[in-house]
């Protein structure tokens, strides 16, 4: 029996070995742990994709629970930065890698920031998105529309009858369902805002915003015209009209594809996925299963790995878990703080690197190596180790993933330079430590390691 339903678009039939499995693990998860790519390659492509989209068994977190520098458990609701570390830990340890990755996709898609609410409401939203990770987009949109963090973020509870606030109404169409200026105009935005009225919340001195609810008397129940439809529309109608809008499937398919594949979607594949999406009643998993099997996923250009994915990957590759909350401020230097997207359009996946954020990633490596640089009077790999052996030891430290010849030659040249002329007895340990430490710092900074 086939593991997956037949794909409506072309399927990759090339070799599925460790390289392909590695790409799949970086794009549909948070990178391989040592041995993961080998294991996945043995499943074949269909089996590998199914293991991500239809994982069996019980969802669980594997490995040591996260804690701060002093061994204290995280307090994501009350302590600055612990919310970021809490989710980062799930990315590192979850046996539902694609569920976490899709939750990240929805976080960027419906980008909400805790600046307008609180970590408590953001984590609540995060669980909601996790429940819908590979589920139904229409249901997700309904839940997002009345999610407390979103209601605060885009003025859903200050959208008054008689004086509508267009904030959510506009972004819902522009960023979440249709795309800028596709099939709607300013009047649709205004009418949509009226349909979305009726939500409110109370304010509690201790807890902040509480008691989010729909109150019929606050809702503008008048006739609205949205996309040429006429009715006494409310927030549920607003979601339904957006999802059933003829320009929605093309927007969703193109945007979802872009999170996973570096090449543009071929028009025929886009059309086929749009049909499949509508036919399924707006289910997401069939689309993901088709995208992860498409030839361009494996043969197309590389993608820069997003900072938080790369950071989780550092820890997974080096068999580490969260043992410091430094990851919270590191995240801001690398350009991706969870629960704090830069704006409502989410992170810019096309431009992850510049001088500042490259330097930020080097600081992330610094933290990952906090207990893993070599020092002291002894050298664990022995004093006969040459540069090539040292290089291989460092590669193994980061999970064994080989680099391109260009990167390898660059690092070997550095290793030889460090070793050159180190003839004194007292130098034998120290130059090897320096060489090994330099390799460990630079391997995850190579273009090979930062892309997949």
């Amino acid at each position, binding site marked *: 029996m086939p593991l997956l339903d037949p794909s409506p678009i072309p399927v990759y039939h090339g070799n599925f070995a460790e390289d392909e499995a590695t790409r799949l693990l970086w794009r549909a998860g948070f990178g391989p742990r040592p041995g993961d790519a080998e294991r996945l390659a043995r499943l074949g492509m269909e089996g590998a994709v199914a293991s991500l989209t239809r994982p069996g068994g019980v969802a669980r977190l594997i490995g040591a629970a996260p804690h701060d520098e002093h061994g204290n458990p995280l307090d994501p609701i009350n302590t*600055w930065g612990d919310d970021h570390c809490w989710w980062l830990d799930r990315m590192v340890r979850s046996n539902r890698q694609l569920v976490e990755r899709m939750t990240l996709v929805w976080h960027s898609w419906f980008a909400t920031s805790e600046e*307008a609410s609180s970590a408590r409401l953001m984590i609540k939203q995060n669980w909601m998105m996790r429940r819908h990770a590979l589920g139904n987009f229409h249901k997700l949109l309904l839940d997002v529309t009345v999610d407390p963090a979103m209601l605060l973020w885009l003025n859903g509870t200050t959208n008054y009858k008689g*004086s509508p606030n267009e904030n959510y109404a506009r972004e819902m169409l522009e960023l979440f369902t249709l795309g800028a200026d596709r099939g709607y105009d300013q009047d649709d935005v205004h009418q949509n805002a009226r349909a979305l009225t009726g939500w409110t919340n109370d304010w509690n001195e201790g807890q902040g915003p509480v008691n989010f609810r729909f109150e019929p008397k606050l809702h503008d129940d008048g006739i609205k015209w949205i996309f040429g439809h006429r009715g006494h529309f409310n927030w549920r109608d607003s979601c339904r009209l957006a999802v059933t809008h003829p320009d929605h499937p093309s927007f969703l398919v193109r945007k979802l594809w872009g999170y996973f594949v570096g090449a543009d979607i071929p028009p025929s594949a886009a059309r086929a996925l749009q049909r499949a999406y509508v036919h399924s009643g707006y289910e997401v998993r069939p689309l993901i299963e088709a995208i992860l099997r498409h030839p361009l996923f494996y043969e197309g250009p590389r993608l820069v790995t997003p900072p938080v994915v790369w950071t989780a990957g550092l820890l997974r590759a080096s068999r580490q878990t969260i043992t410091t909350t430094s990851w*919270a401020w590191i995240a801001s*230097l690398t350009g991706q703080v969870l629960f704090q997207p830069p704006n409502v359009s989410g992170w810019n996946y096309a431009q992850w690197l510049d*001088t500042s954020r490259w330097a930020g990633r080097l600081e992330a490596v610094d933290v990952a*190596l906090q207990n893993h640089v070599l020092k002291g009077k002894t050298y664990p790999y022995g004093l006969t180790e040459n540069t090539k052996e040292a290089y291989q030891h460092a590669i193994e430290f980061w999970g064994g993933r080989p680099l391109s010849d260009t990167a390898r030659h660059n690092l070997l040249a550095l290793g030889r330079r460090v070793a050159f002329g180190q003839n004194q007895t007292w130098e034998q340990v120290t*130059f090897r430590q320096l060489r090994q*430490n330099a390799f460990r710092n630079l391997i995850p900074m190579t273009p090979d390691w930062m892309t997949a």
Partner: protein
Amino acid sequence: MNPPTDSRVPRSPEGHCDGFSRAQAIRRVLASGKPPIAREWDPRMPVPAGAGIDRRRFLAGVLGGAMTVYGAGRLGLTNRMLGDGIAHAAAIQPADSPILVSLFMQGGLDGLSLLAPAGDPLYRQLRPTLAVAAGSGAPFRADPSLTWHPSAASFAQLHNAGKVAVFPGIGYTSPDMSHFTSRHYWEVGATEASLLTGWMGRYLDVVGEATNPFQGLSMDGQINPTLATAKNPTAAIDQPNNFAVWLNGVWGNAAEWALDSAAALGDAQRRSRDPAIAQVAGAASEVGIVRRTLQPFQTTNGNPGAPSGTAANPGAAYGSSVTYPAASTGDLPARLAGLAAMIAAGVPLRCVALTTDTQFDTHSGQQTTFDAGVKLVADSLAAFQADLEARGVDGRVLVHVWSEFGRRAEENGSNGTDHGAAGASLLVGSRVNAGMIGEFAPLNQLDANGNQQENVDFRGVYCSLLEQWFGQDAAAVIPNAASLPRYQLLA
């Protein structure tokens, strides 16, 4: 020192629709001081000279003057070596070449509050709770029917001193009320959704060099889209004193060689056919140059990455002789102080871009955000201008202050304003034509959506900046430049 804890205090939603910027998050972390990472050094080794805390015990003297380095002898470094980065950089372009600074007031600044027709009954009718009261702020010299917002007093003073030009009704035809679309238009210098290069980026592609990332400097901790180039390198930093690059457990020559090696790998792969490889490699390559150039600006507090200016006097880190305002939000004053120091030190800048920490997207509770945000920008720019004058480099610098749109003339029901069309923009500098360019967009001539209509086209301002400030034919940079209007921007 621990990160700030106050960010978890429940607060009233401020009505942002696009939240605060990532750059603000970075600066908040940097300003709070990073938790120190324990490091140990092998006592038998030479004193660390490549990386780490000890390496940062440099003392950069008054920038542009002599530099002294604590323990330079032990480190095997000379002042001259430390100055090489800047010396090399300065050789690239003449010391008097012009610099354009773009300051983006993000979120859609309410022009009707910045310069208010306080005496107009229609204005008070449209703005029952938000109207600026007549007489509460300085009269606008170029048009007495307008009043500066009280928070913009520094702009009023600069304007009266002949150092600010005002565009009260800037925008473009068929305005788009989306932040992202409108901001994109301003960033790329055209009303074209598909353009991927910034307008200043394209200028740098015409006149810039393949070896100077400082020609296009973002000071937001990430590349500013106005500076996106097609071929020439640019750089992103936060402040010059916190661009820290070091390797854990690697010291001395090995550290220098390792960082050079990373830059060399970047050089080798930055032209890769794979765009992802090229993006990472390009950044690595540019880090090599930025690192060397900014070394003299590194501070002495033993905590690389943390600024050493005080909250009360952010310019102290850069030897500024003027006092910059203390920032209630973010660190715009410190970034501007750092910029003034870099200009005076001869860092080869051409185009610089900064974004305000404040989001001016005031859908609700407008007054709080607007008042503090505008005051910080105005006071910071006044200090920056004075700093440049004190350093004798003010003639080289022009600051362009802009926002993606103005706001709806009629306020909404949440003491805020929704997205509008035409808004206000400023030019600040010693050489500006310090009057009003264009005119106030009358409130009895609103467009179909109830927004002010533009009388100055921002693309025409870009053409005029290119031609009058840089002496560059605008046609090579701005699409359809020939059909766009020109404005007299300089005195």
